[in-house]
């Protein structure tokens, strides 16, 4: 719910924004939830890549945790509005955000490449050798 006060000098602007805000949805991905694309892990042989939009997140506010074939992304976005500001439109989300990603296999932790550029996190991960198919001995009785 967007709370709006309408000072008379802003009547025109507020009317326009109000019309637009009716379709606003939750998002952390830079666009309406209905329009944004959910990221998927892309696999190419023994390499997997993953991209996630994190606009406004600083490197220092980002944490990646690998646990077997699970990747957890913890991010925090700062609220940039000042206490004295009047809020005319509020669609962006602030605070802490967690995304858990299921990987196709466990990855080599020491070889994960992570870059954060212009609000987009891009990860390249390599399959751990231990993750490959292995034979299970069958004992005959």
């Amino acid at each position, binding site marked *: 719910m967007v709370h709006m006060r309408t000072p008379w000098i802003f009547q025109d602007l507020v009317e326009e924004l109000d019309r637009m805000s009716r379709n606003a949805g939750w998002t952390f991905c830079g666009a309406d939830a209905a329009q944004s694309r959910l990221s998927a892990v892309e696999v190419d042989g023994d390499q997997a890549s993953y991209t996630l939009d994190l606009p406004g997140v600083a490197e220092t506010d980002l944490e990646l945790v690998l646990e077997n074939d699970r990747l957890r992304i913890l991010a925090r976005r700062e609220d940039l509005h000042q206490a004295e500001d009047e809020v005319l*439109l509020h669609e962006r989300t602030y605070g802490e955000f967690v995304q858990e990603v299921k990987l196709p296999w466990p990855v080599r932790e020491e070889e994960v490449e992570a870059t954060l550029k212009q609000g987009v996190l891009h990860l390249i991960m390599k399959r751990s050798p231990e993750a490959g198919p292995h034979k299970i001995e069958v004992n005959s009785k």
Partner: protein
Amino acid sequence: MTTDEKTVENEVTQTESKAKTVDKSYLRPVTDVYKDDDAVRILMDVPGANDEDIEVSVHDGQLSILAEVNRSEEDVRVYERSFRMDRRMDTAKIEALLQRGVLQLRIPFHEEARPKRIQVRTAS
């Protein structure tokens, strides 16, 4: 394969080929708008955009923001949104800053439109 089947196959191949060439998504970027005594500030998420990808323009009192971001050869995202400006806003002095995929616009009010404190003097 008959001639008709070949034609159909060619058409299908061509259609798929075109679809792969450009996959443009038109998105309405999420936005915050704040106001204080001096200006209106607009914060808009445009992840992946560089300076040169963004066009901010004002025409007939309408502020338009357009960002075309090439995420990959097959994934182009177009972020587009417009706002009608109140005439008290000084659109000639708009400041724009792009940081971490967030576009920040500051649109000041004309000097005469800003609130002024009137000094009250006690009559002697």
